[in-house]
């Protein structure tokens, strides 16, 4: 197992390098640059800016300097658009926001989704099952950019209970709507995966044996059925977790939370090269890490899997 983890981390480094090179090439091939503006800068002023940010050097040199700074100093460079801030600063301030609402969304999506799925499976073909399935289908077809305005109309404009957006240091009132809007579709998927996988497990031979042995329903479900039933859910949770904690541009835009999801998109529009790269690397790193975590969880849940 230990060797397996080491091996996976070993693969992660070249993967990240490929990601960096690939993103760098795509980014540089987009028309315009960080200093392109409605009023083109005088040539000398533009040159001074390019010298300051090292953009006057050949591409391969820029790329090498970039990687060297990250490896030796963990320095992702200055932002070209927000000139008195570094990429490290931007991520250090934006990522905790995204992480906060992401983790809450994850907790909500998993707890509600899994419970809903289990209940629906146990009460298969009852009104509870139909309600749960109905709920999850409607939650899934309602994308968050539709969900968000609906929430605002209800909770802000009509009831006046919650602020229509902002972050304000992460007070709970500001968290409620982003968390609901972000988690519902994940919640729905989790519920449906749990339900169908639970149904399959409940109909399997070893559960029939357990029933024949006269075990109580609670024991059967929690001790025997749940673990194997969660296997497909776990597969889904890895990418879902990364998806939630790396932010959603819709949530950030709609609730003006200040998370990195919006930053990622605006940096691309601004051609803020270093910010684009920084967030890409962060997302890449997290994806690799959580895939690894999922693999480890697999081994724990399913004794058949050995690395």
């Amino acid at each position, binding site marked *: 197992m230990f060797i397996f983890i080491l091996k996976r981390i070993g693969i992660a480094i070249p993967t990240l390098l490929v990601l960096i090179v690939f993103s760098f090439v795509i980014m540089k091939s987009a028309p315009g640059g960080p200093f392109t*503006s409605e009023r083109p800068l005088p040539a000398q002023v533009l040159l001074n800016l390019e010298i300051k940010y090292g953009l006057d050097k050949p591409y391969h040199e820029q790329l090498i300097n970039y990687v060297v700074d990250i490896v030796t100093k963990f320095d992702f460079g200055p932002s070209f658009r927000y000139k008195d801030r570094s990429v490290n600063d931007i991520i250090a301030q934006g990522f905790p926001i995204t992480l906060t609402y992401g983790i809450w969304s994850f907790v909500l999506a998993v707890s509600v989704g899994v419970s809903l799925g289990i209940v629906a499976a146990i009460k298969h073909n009852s009104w509870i099952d139909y309600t749960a399935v109905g709920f999850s289908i409607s939650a899934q077809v309602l994308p968050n950019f539709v969900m968000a305005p609906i929430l605002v109309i209800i909770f802000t404009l009509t009831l006046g209970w919650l602020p229509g957006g902002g972050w304000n240091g992460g007070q709970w009132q500001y968290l409620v709507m982003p968390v609901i809007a972000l988690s519902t579709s994940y919640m729905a998927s989790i519920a449906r995966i749990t339900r169908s996988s639970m149904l399959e497990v409940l109909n399997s031979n070893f559960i029939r044996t357990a029933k024949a042995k006269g075990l109580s329903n609670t024991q059967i479900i929690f001790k025997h059925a749940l673990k194997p039933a969660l296997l497909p859910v776990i597969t889904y949770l890895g990418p879902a977790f990364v998806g939630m904690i790396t932010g959603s541009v819709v949530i950030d835009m709609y609730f003006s939370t200040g998370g990195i999801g919006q930053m990622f998109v605006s940096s691309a529009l601004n051609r803020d090269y270093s910010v684009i790269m920084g967030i890409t690397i962060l997302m890449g790193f997290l994806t690799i890490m959580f895939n690894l975590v999922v693999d480890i969880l697999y081994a724990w849940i399913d004794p058949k899997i050995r690395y």
Partner: protein
Amino acid sequence: MKSITKIMAASLIGSTFLVAPVVAANVPAGVELAADQTFTYRVLDEHSSVDPQIVEDVSGSELVRDLFEGLLNQDADGVLIPGVAESWEASNGNLTYTFKLRSDAKWSNGDPVTAGDFVYSWQRLADPKTASPYAWFMEIMSLENASEIVAGEKEPSELGVSAPDDHTLVVNLTAPLPYFAAMTTHASTFPSPQKVVEEFGTDWTKPENIVSNGAYVLTEHVPSERSVRERNPNYWNDSETVIDKVVALVINDENIALTRYLAGELDRTEVPAGQYPDLKKKYPDQALSFPKLCSYYYSFNVSDSGPEAFKDVRVRQALSYALDRSVVTEQVLKGGQFPAFTFTPGATANFTVPDVAFAKMSQAERDAKAKELMEAAGYNADNPLSFELLYNTSEAHKKVATVAAQMWKQKLGAEVTLANQEWKVFLEVRGKQDFDLARGGWCGDYNEASTFLDLLTTPSGYNDGKYSNAEVDKLMTDAKTASDPSDNYTRVEEILANEMPLIPVYHYTGVYMMGADIIGSWPVKNVEQNWYSRDLYKVK
């Protein structure tokens, strides 16, 4: 970015020694102030910086004008008033300017603001090591050696600015600029604290490090979410400041911002296109529309890479005539915008809108004339004109372009293809003359017609359509040294109305929803919208 103000007014007063009254929040007698003096407003995007020598966007400059104070300020009408400088004087035929600084100006840490602070900051602005995107401002201010310093040929210490004593700033120019004093209201000329900048480097603008000399200090900043500025008790005129706290919330989408305004979370927000009449009806005391120094236009590509058809002046005129501006302003935008028949907005100081012929015709007459011109140019049903209209991706631009294309099709049978591009791609394509007809928007850098008309001179870097006319060039060059250039501007607009290198569509308005308790103190008459929170106040 907009800044230099009332050039003409300044040129009249620039040569005499001047002491003007100080203006702070001008609360009329008998007005009862609200207990909570917090002003919360929406900004479209995260500001670029609050470093005076680095900032380059409008919302950042708004912050800098609150956090720092330059030599001079503008009042609610855009007229120059003292800032850190109490008085100023031009001598040596407008080649030397002397500013007398007030002795009670302090930084937020209690240190006095001295002439040396301005010398440092101006040298810092020109220094190629700073790489300020506004370094060129020192050049257009005509400071001695500015261009050489920006080019790295001379040391920043050789810039034409000096401090004979702590309260005297002397500036030497290479050209006699009558309006020089007005240029010191531009954010890039504001002082930055040398000690703090050198101690913290680029981190000096963080709330925990920043030291500033304006009416407010930066107390909180969450990038892309909010910035908070609060009263600076060391500000020399703090006793006459009313607003205690200013909160800028970043809300990218204007419809979302409007929702939050209606939920009572904001004191000011922009009104999305088309919604002004309804809002004005529902909230007559909160909806506000006032003229701004900005023009919306379509440029013809008349360069070699442009379509052959647009080299024919009759085609350009026909397209301009057939565009019914009132449909755009009254049925699409609905925010009190003004139909444009000249490039320069009528609200510009000392600009007389010329009686251009096509502005006086009725739309029916213009349509008839357009058809005639089009026929004469050889375009008809069998040989329709066809071209592409390029704009940057945005709902509002799309609406205007669709309406325009429809009119040209119906009235002139032209086949117009609409094309939109993401902002930076659009800028690059337009800058390389890779278009037929392209959308443009221009806001004046200062309140004077040349900020618009210079765009159409041959050497201008902003002349995307590559229009070139020797007479226009000469008139605009002469205007720089003329005592009253307004005739030149009128003549240039007449030439433009004839040659139609661009189609003026409309002149912008600022369209806001603003809390009924603060709307009365908003400087609607400052067409550049250089506003200072210290001049505002909330009533009960």
